[in-house]
């Protein structure tokens, strides 16, 4: 369970990631890598039609394969209490009632799981399951369905649309973004093990163990504590692990049926339909400004896809209410049901999509107004208060992000008119955009166990999905207690540890940091309490009065009234000193609004003959409050920026309207950005703590790194070529045809 077990790794890992050595040596175990005695293997069978129902499933041939233990379908599955009837299914909010319906909602929907002694047997047998269907009409073409889906108000209207109907400087345009998949490197996997009739142990890839635990406790009607979920190492998530997906339940049911632990790992093609994706979207923007550039009004309309069996709304227009002060604002949206699996949150959900349209439109307006897009934005930022809640920002340094970014990329090199700079067949241009995200915080708990040698183990249930959570926990605990990082171990990603929210929505560090500060202080307090028996001076000591070192605690200054841990431990006959504490948001949430923000600047070159876009430079400056660990934070930003490059230039989950499903759903067909597509991302921070958000002053960074990237690149392409591209991804063909 420990991130690292031997002394060596502790001493060397402190400067980098706490889990770094375990990861690169292969010692760290991802969900599918655990060995569980008597385990057998599952393989999912997906429907080959997009809509209709199952007439018959013939498993005869599949069962002939040597090693096959059973094949689960809707006809023979063990009943899930939470799916007992239609009402319960609805109430469960689980989405797809896997194996509890004969209805088909999308192509690739899991309709059977084959369980066998080996993965090979299971996979082969899965190919022999024969299904006959009654087919129905399906809808998978978003563009077609979207046009006939009405919009409705999304949030309160500000001012009126009439107030700016005669505005002189106006842009009106539509923007489209293709569906994108998360596809983290580690494919989703589960090992389900029923320890007894009502005790379940899961090794599972997800972003929140407590969420998984609660979900199955409800579905199976068993106490939460009877379920242990282990997700100690998570090879990326990007939002795909924020929900509990049908394949996990399928594995649990299979384990129940064969009465053995079952391991299931999704295949790469299955990853495209099993764990959500960023939905395809359409947006329309109407934006006007007076001659000085003050925004007069904004109309933001948006639609995105969802599935036919579930409503998912990611809130594309939210960002319209966040960044700028606009007196007249109207936002409308709707979701468009398709015969595809349900989409979900993907890095910068909603805002990333909405931001592309708004920040592109602002750039378009800047050319209409003949104003520098940096100045235009600066003029309209809402720096004092949130335009949506009306509450003052606790901190908002988006203006400083813009200034710092502009200086770094040498924005003054940018030409005001497009298509001015050429090098051979290459056109060169600059672009920028900003991004913002509501900075949230949840309730989180953490525990510390202290040994008499002064070493600590800091624990929480929160997962570390590659974001550096464990490392940040170590940094904070060391800073508050004074104990060196080398002596602090981290344990996380296990539901038996103190509960914490899921790692998502840029709230991970914001939430857990409060708990780590609280528990570190609790430790000091507890030591002071024990110490007061030996030395009166500690009687009324506060945590600020106490200083910890490797071997002893002291009062006010190191060495003053020093008491060695060994002596404390002996006096009080201690074995391990244990403290636990929780921390969460409070009334500051009524007083302030909170945001993280970023400014993205880039320099691109566009080949006029081949349509190729190369990004020469990308500068991302973020306000993430106090930066707890500079390396991990920069890593979040550059990873997000490369995700942004993928979103802008190549990512597209293709749907074939005739086939009724995805095509090219593998890594040969779906392109995400690789190193060759990205320059070295130049990351910088504002480094100003937010005094109100949590005890460390740090705000989340995971989302703002990507929000704004797409518009910055598209705006740079316009500056380079005079071609305005409003449909993502901007592949070479679109450049050539524009």
């Amino acid at each position: 369970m420990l991130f690292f077990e031997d002394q060596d790794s502790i001493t060397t890992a402190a400067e980098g990631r706490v889990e770094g050595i375990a990861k690169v040596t292969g010692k760290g175990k991802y969900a599918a890598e655990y060995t569980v005695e008597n385990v057998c293997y599952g393989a999912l069978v997906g429907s080959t039609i997009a809509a209709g129902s199952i007439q018959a499933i013939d498993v005869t041939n599949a069962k002939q394969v040597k090693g096959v233990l059973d094949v689960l379908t809707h006809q023979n599955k063990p009943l899930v209490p939470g799916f007992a009837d239609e009402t319960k299914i609805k109430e469960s909010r689980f989405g797809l009632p896997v194996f509890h319906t004969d209805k088909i909602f999308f192509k690739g929907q899991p309709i059977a799981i084959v369980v066998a002694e080996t993965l090979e047997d299971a996979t082969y047998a899965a190919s022999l399951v024969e299904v006959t269907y009654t087919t129905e009409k399906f809808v998978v073409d978003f563009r077609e369905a979207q046009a006939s889906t009405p919009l409705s108000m999304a949030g309160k209207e500000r001012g009126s649309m009439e107030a700016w109907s005669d505005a002189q400087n106006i842009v009106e345009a539509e923007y489209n973004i293709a569906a994108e998949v998360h596809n983290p490197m580690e494919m989703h996997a589960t090992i389900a093990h029923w320890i007894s009739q009502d005790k379940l142990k899961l090794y599972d890839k997800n972003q929140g163990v407590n969420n998984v635990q609660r979900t199955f406790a409800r579905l199976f009607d068993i106490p939460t504590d009877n379920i242990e979920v282990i997700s100690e190492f998570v090879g990326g998530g990007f939002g795909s692990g924020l929900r509990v997906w049908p394949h996990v339940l399928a594995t649990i049911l299979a384990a129940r049926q064969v009465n053995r632990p079952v391991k299931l790992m999704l295949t790469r093609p299955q990853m495209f339909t099993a764990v959500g994706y960023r939905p395809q979207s359409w947006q329309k923007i109407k934006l006007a400004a007076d001659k000085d550039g003050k925004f007069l009004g904004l109309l933001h309309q948006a639609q995105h896809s969802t599935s036919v069996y579930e409503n998912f709304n990611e809130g594309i227009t939210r960002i319209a209410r966040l960044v700028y002060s606009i007196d007249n604002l109207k936002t409308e949206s709707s979701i468009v049901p398709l015969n595809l699996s349900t989409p979900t949150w993907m890095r910068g959900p909603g805002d990333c999509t909405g931001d592309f349209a708004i920040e592109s439109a602002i750039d378009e307006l800047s050319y209409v107004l003949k104003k520098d897009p940096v100045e235009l934005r600066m003029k309209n930022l809402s720096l004092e208060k949130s335009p949506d809640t009306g509450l003052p920002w606790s901190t908002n340094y988006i203006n400083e992000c813009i200034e710092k970014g502009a200086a770094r990329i040498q924005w003054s090199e940018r030409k005001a008119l497009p298509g001015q700079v050429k090098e051979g067949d290459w056109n060169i241009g600059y672009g920028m955009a900003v991004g913002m995200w509501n900075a949230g915080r949840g309730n989180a708990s953490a525990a510390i166990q202290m040994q008499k040698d002064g070493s600590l183990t800091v624990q929480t249930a929160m997962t570390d999905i590659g974001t550096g959570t464990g490392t940040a926990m170590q940094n904070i605990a060391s800073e508050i207690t004074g104990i060196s990082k080398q002596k602090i171990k981290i344990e996380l990603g296990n539901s038996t540890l103190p509960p914490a929210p899921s790692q998502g929505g840029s709230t991970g560090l914001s939430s857990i940091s409060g708990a780590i500060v609280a528990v570190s202080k609790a430790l000091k307090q507890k030591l002071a309490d024990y110490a007061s028996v030996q030395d009166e001076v500690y009687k009324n000591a506060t945590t600020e009065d106490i200083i910890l070192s490797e071997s002893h605690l002291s009062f006010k200054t190191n060495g003053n009234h020093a008491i060695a841990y060994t002596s404390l431990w002996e006096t009080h006959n201690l074995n391990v000193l244990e403290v636990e504490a929780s921390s969460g948001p409070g009334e500051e949430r009524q007083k302030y609004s909170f945001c993280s923000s970023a400014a993205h600047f880039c320099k691109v070159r566009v080949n006029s003959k081949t349509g190729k876009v190369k990004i020469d430079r990308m500068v991302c400056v973020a306000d993430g409050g106090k930066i707890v660990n500079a390396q991990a934070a920069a890593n979040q930003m550059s990873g997000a920026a490369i995700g942004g490059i993928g979103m802008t230039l190549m990512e597209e989950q293709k749907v074939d309207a005739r086939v009724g499903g995805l095509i090219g759903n593998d890594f040969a067909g779906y392109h995400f950005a690789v190193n060759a597509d990205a320059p070295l991302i130049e990351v910088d921070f504002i480094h100003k703590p937010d005094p109100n958000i949590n005890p460390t002053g740090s705000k989340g960074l995971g989302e703002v790194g990507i929000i704004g990237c797409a518009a910055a690149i598209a705006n740079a392409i316009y500056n380079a070529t005079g071609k305005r591209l409003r449909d993502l991804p901007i592949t070479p063909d679109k450049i050539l045809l524009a």
Partner: protein
Amino acid sequence: MKPFAFTKAESLPKTLSAKKETTQFIAGGTNLLDLMKKHISQPDELVDITSMLSDKIEAHKKGIRIGAMVRNSTVTLDANILTNYPLLAKAILAGASPQIRNMASAGGNLLQRTRCPYFYDITTPCNKRQPGSGCSAVEGENRMSAIIGYSEQCVAVHPSDFCIALAALDAAVVVTQSNQKNSTIPFSDFHRLPGSTPQQDTNLPANALIHSIEIPVNDFHKNCAYVKVRDRDSYAFALVSVAAALDLKGNTIQEARLASGGVAHKPWRWYEAEQYLKGKEANAVHFKEAAAMAAKDVKPLAHNGFKKLMLQGAIETALQNCLTT
């Protein structure tokens, strides 16, 4: 994946005589294993031919011979190739990833199958995979598909980069037939157009082996280039690729070669444009004219109209690059 037997080939005669319709040779396995995992190839037996075929690059008077088992990355490191046939290395380096190139064999590269997404999805109709079932791409998602030489039955493109360079350099494929006799197939005849039998990619006789690839001596080593336009800059197949080679005397073109990938069911030579360039000055005006000449015959499908412009641009760029890189 369907269970299969695995044997290591010991001798050529034994291997050839034992080869059945349901047996398949495996070299690097980088394409075949994917096809098996996706239930597109379902052999009963795999015969590993890696230790039975030459992995040598041999120079001789008339040219150079690349054994069928030479790994793709070996081609890119060979001194003789880098000096005298650099176009081959340039093309290979524009494809796949270092790991795949380390595994992939020269013979296997010639026989890799199309990347048409429907071909890889057994739930969709595809004449190449299942003759007679129909072509999903012709009226479906055909952004990556052919713009020349296709038929109603199949609009898929040939995916290899290496083969485009081989086509440009007038290579030939030496094959060992089941009767153990060697014969030579000119490269231009090795791959086929789909016609009404798209299931057949090449003219390699049934149960025959690729023995080696011959490339004749040429004067293109100083001025050659490979341009590959793709959706991302590494590890992606070509939207359009161009192998260009010029034999220059001063600035006058003695001979020109132009071949493209991503446009047809086989590596495509632009003979008319080559002919046009012969005797001309190497300059942008002539390059542009040659590119237009190549592009005039193409007939894009619903979603790949851009390939005409891209082809033109890529040919111009490749010819230009012949002078600089």
